């Protein structure tokens, strides 16, 4: 086993981890603010990929089609998310968690079936954007340029999301809402409007992950299922509702998965769950969780 191979797997793990981070950040923001575990997050991730596919195909071979899709698909999904929040979620904020799980799980099924009705059960492929196709040759290894772009792009998005939450007035309302929803309401701020914005923002991050994964894995109606499981693992490891926890957890899961494939490929998935169990055992609230 060469050090080069170890380095490569680390790189692979970090990039895959970055995708987990992006999806989990969306989930964790929604949980932190709305106190709702969104089981439709995976299906929305798939919806983002399909929206992007449609935008890119409509624009045809034009070089900018993928870049426009990166902007338009998350916006479209944000709109869908806003509708879901206003028409459905809003009715059950005060209900027990089981109701919210049932509702969001139902939404997930509806989205999945709609995808099959509109785009068909067979998956879709989308070629790499020309600008990012190709590899950087590292001797024995080659690393796709696209994956390097992916890492930095996600880092940028996360930084932006963090600045939005920590440094803007709107972010302050959101943070206040996480701490004490009723107090924010008493201060004369329309907390429900903030909820809609947060939910739309959270799901648009999942959609963005769907767009970014499109050239790597294509779009399939059930692509959200596996990713949702992993996202929950990341969420638990990092700590529910913690922004930094999502980033840390995502990178841990990505790297553990990738490294274990070197030593024990059959056990790659098991070791992720083992890592989760370990975290729950040592720190029941997750590495950076506060509740």
């Amino acid at each position: 086993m060469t050090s080069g191979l170890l380095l490569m797997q680390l790189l692979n793990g970090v990039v895959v981890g970055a995708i987990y981070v992006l999806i989990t950040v969306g989930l964790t923001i929604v949980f932190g603010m709305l106190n709702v575990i969104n089981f439709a997050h995976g299906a929305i991730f798939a919806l983002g990929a399909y929206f992007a596919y449609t935008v890119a195909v409509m624009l045809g071979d034009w070089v900018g089609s993928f870049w426009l899709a990166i902007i338009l698909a998350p916006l479209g999904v944000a709109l869908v998310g806003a509708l879901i929040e206003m028409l459905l979620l809003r009715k059950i904020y005060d209900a027990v968690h089981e109701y919210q799980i049932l509702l969001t799980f139902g939404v997930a099924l509806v989205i999945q079936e709609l995808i099959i009705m509109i785009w068909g059960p067979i998956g879709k492929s989308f070629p790499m954007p020309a600008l990012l196709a190709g590899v950087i040759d590292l001797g024995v290894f080659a690393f796709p340029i696209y994956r390097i772009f992916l890492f930095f792009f996600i880092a940028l998005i996360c930084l932006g999301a963090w600045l939005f939450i920590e440094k803007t007035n709107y972010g302050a309302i959101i943070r206040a809402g996480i701490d004490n929803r009723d107090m924010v309401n008493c201060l004369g701020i329309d907390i429900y409007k903030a909820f809609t914005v947060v939910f739309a923002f959270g799901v648009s991050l999942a959609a963005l992950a769907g767009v970014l994964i499109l050239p790597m894995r294509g779009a399939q109606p059930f692509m959200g299922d596996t990713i949702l499981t992993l996202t929950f693992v990341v969420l638990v490891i990092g700590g529910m509702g913690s922004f930094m926890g999502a980033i840390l957890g995502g990178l841990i899961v990505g790297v553990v998965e990738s490294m274990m494939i070197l030593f024990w490929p059959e056990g790659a998935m098991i070791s992720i769950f083992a890592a989760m169990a370990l975290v729950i055992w040592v720190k029941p609230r997750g590495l950076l969780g506060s509740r």
Partner: protein
Amino acid sequence: MKRQIAVLGFIGLAVALLFFWTNPVNAENEFGIGSVGPFSGPYASLGEDIVRGSEYAVEEAGGKVLGKPIKLTVIDSEAKPGVGARKVREAIQSQGIKYFNNETSSAVALAISQVCQEEKAIYITSVGADEITGSKCNRYTFRWSIPTYGAVQETIKPLIKMFPDAKRWYTITPDYVFGHSLLNNAIAVFKEFGVEHVGNDMHPIGHTEFSSFLTKAMAAKADFVVFFNFGKDTINALKQANNFGMTKKAKILVAWSSGLRDLEEIGPEFCEGVYFGCQFWHTENVPVTQKLNKIWLTKYNRFPSYPEASAYIMTKLQIMAIEKAGTTDPDAVIRALEGMKYDGLTGAEEIQAFDHQVKKKYYLLRAKAKNEIKGPGDNAEIISTGISVIPQAKSDCKMQ
């Protein structure tokens, strides 16, 4: 009291109605065939293909066998062995169906095969695991597709001969019956030809991220990387192999693909130059295939894919054998099927009597580049074909 009696009466009536309602195959007037496949969940598109193929076989026969109308029943296995076996047993016991075909998962097909043996019902399948017509063969089970043994013989062998310089082979295998079966056969071929098997990785079925496996294969300096996975797994693996520039560093073989469907879904950008093994390819110039092409082009405006074609031929074989036997009695139909020669999708095909395996061609395809493709369906060219089934002397099948 009166009211209670009335209520009881209504319940009785409802139960009776329900009974007649769910008992649609009338043995006197109708003949039932059950097509089994995954009709829900991630593999549902395969189920739809199966129905299209089976329906056309019935339609081609005029909807009748021996003068009785054929009733096609669709059975959703959900790709789970327990579910598939239970539903087939129910169909036999409550609806009296004695003829079953299809299913795409080896594990599910093995379970159904066992049920059919116990219940004396005829089953034709197209799954890969050697056991179906090998160590777990039985009198009631037949297989149309070439098993994993032949798939390896007809893909890896010709490629070793074609590329004598490719000495280092790496395999990526899904961790279940079908994958293990392909891998074991491949290891035997590697030994036989003295090429080096530089590594193998097992991945769980439904795996989506292959980057780490691909990196390992590249680190092993493989000349040839073989994917033994199927469907979605293959599609993901190939896309990522392309992302990593592997297609330029090594040759890639998908030993068992579902043909045109996979090629179209992956797209020529990703599979240019990749080798694919396949049970069926629509350019085969034989009457049965050409007729199927024409029908599919008129009905669906595209060429038939492997799951559709195999479902068609398996249903057709059952209908043909019943006509030949002149009865729907399974024992007589088994005798009619054993040794039957017919014009099939790959030319002359024959059902071997000793293990119930169909002798037919297997194809090795090379996917074309985008600018080489002249139109729909022109995604690949056949570069080698042959018939490889396990010879009787080496077979593990002890027919009961």
